[in-house]
């Protein structure tokens, strides 16, 4: 399109040409919008295609074992149980650590902070969300791990807890920004009614506004968890990656993401190990999918209600 025709009003285009153009442009926009749908469908397709043959040989029961030992001169085992518990342990710990910071911070930002304070705090929270995870991981390895070791008197600082602390750092911005939105959208009449009944400002915030925003806050926590469970680089650097089944935060654990990232590079294409890694990917995908689904449901109910 030349500059002059761009300047012209759409009305000046002959009707039939306009309709065709409209169609083309509509198609262009639609394909842009549906790219992600196609990509997701393709990923599902590829995942199952690559993982599929494992179900026939050596069989899916292999995945249910308690030992992940894919490179072995004896017998390779592909039990993903320690990987799943590793991911769950780190994710749960990270959520428990991140929620108080995220929710209290959001309440402060939305209800209590002055405009000037918010101006300073908000950019830093966004900055935290933007730090590359490998940088956070490096910080964890060099700074955090020795301190965790010294603080708890552990033989090694490479533990589930160290990983969880780093992941909490990454989940806090997600939880804080979405919770803040939820708290902010609580109708002013709630606050006015509470204040009119003689409640103080903090009482109003904590007993009226935050409970009213609870579904939004829960959704923010779920989305934060979704981010945490899928995170790879930082956990791989500080959790020690030993595939043991444990509930202790002071033990080393191996997460599903770290396993895929660490082993995919080496694995022979089409081998059992290769296919087992795709099963790990499928399980991980289903878990994040589940978490996101629940979060959406809660959020929608809340918006409708």
């Amino acid at each position, binding site marked *: 399109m030349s500059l002059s025709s761009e300047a012209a009003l759409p009305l000046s285009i002959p009707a039939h040409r306009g309709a065709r153009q409209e169609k083309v442009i509509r198609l262009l926009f639609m394909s842009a919008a549906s790219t992600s749908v196609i990509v997701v469908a393709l990923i599902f397709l590829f995942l199952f295609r690559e993982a599929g043959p494992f179900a026939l040989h050596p069989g899916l029961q292999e995945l249910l074992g308690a030992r992940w*030992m894919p490179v072995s001169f004896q017998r390779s085992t592909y039990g993903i149980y320690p990987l799943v518990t590793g991911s769950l342990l780190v994710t749960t710990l990270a959520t428990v650590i991140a929620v108080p910071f995220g929710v209290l911070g959001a309440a402060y930002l939305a209800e209590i902070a002055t405009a000037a304070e918010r101006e300073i705090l908000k950019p830093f929270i966004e900055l935290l969300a933007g730090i590359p995870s490998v940088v956070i991981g490096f910080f964890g390895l060099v700074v955090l791990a020795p301190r965790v070791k010294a603080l708890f008197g552990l033989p090694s600082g490479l533990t589930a807890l160290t990983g969880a602390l780093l992941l909490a750092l990454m989940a806090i911005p997600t939880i804080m920004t979405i919770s803040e939105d939820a708290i902010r959208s609580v109708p002013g009449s709630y606050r006015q009614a509470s204040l009119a009944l003689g409640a103080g400002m903090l009482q109003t915030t904590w007993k009226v506004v935050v409970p009213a925003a609870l579904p939004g806050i829960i959704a923010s926590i779920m989305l934060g968890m979704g981010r945490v469970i899928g995170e790879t680089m930082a956990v791989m650097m500080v959790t*020690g990656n030993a595939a043991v089944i444990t509930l202790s935060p002071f033990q080393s654990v191996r997460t599903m993401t770290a396993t895929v990232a660490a082993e995919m590079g080496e*694995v022979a294409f089409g081998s059992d190990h290769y296919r087992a890694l795709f099963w790990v990917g499928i399980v991980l995908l289903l878990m994040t999918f589940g978490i996101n689904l629940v979060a959406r449901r809660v959020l929608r109910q809340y918006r409708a209600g």
Partner: protein
Amino acid sequence: MKWVGMAAVFAAACLAAAGCSRRSEDAGGQGRYITVKGSDTMIQLVSAWAEAFMKVNPGIEVSTTGGGSGTGIAALINGTTDIAAASREIKDDEMKFAAEKAVHPVETTVARDGIAVIVNPQNPVNGLTIEQIRKIYVGQTTNWRQVGGPDEPITVLSRESSSGTYVFFQDHVLGRQDYSPKVRLMPATATIVQSVEDDRWAIGYVGLGYAVEAGGRVKPLEVKANESAPAVTPSEATVRSGEYPIARPLYVYTNGQPTGAVKQFVDFATGSEGQRIVRETGYVPLQ
């Protein structure tokens, strides 16, 4: 989210398959652009070779990438690299996959490397036998007291299973037994050095080049092949003479006998200038 990363892997695999036919023409030797891919242990060495090689042969461009020995061999099989650098021998199932794709990996030994077993400088233990190291890594020995040290639990560190060093160590030190599941697997050699430096009671293993480079931050142990053998400090001299028991050759693999630019590069690496670079980067020359 992580499956985006996985999609990238797929995309790369698809491109690799598509690029296959073009690459096989280049491998004939007319190409003025060659790629070397593989072992992270060898990446410094290969990059140094590439740099010096391109200075002598300005018409040929050499690109190098790491990723692990298996990655390099997989790339050779898929036709996406001309040369695979590997710190271990090609496995039987990889030969099988290669045969299926009509690729014929040919092995050339280009240097030698010793694996240093490292501990914290504050650890009073100065040497171990191969058998003691094996027991530590398979989980039968868990306390330094059992090997003549103080009463402290051992933090055992290893490379990830994607590393050629992991497989070599399992083969030559662990007697092909499985690592204990409690062994902490570190994503890179540098993170092993860092963790051993931070942790008084950790043990790890790294290539000789890394141990030399780390200087006083970590302490390489003297190793005895057995109870009655002499304790040997890992060094260039002891690796070449065969006295140091944990040593290995480093290889490059090509599809068929190297020809053209690929042959020039392999000849350069094994030649006097290439072997001088081997020594400079902390590995052990062939002669």
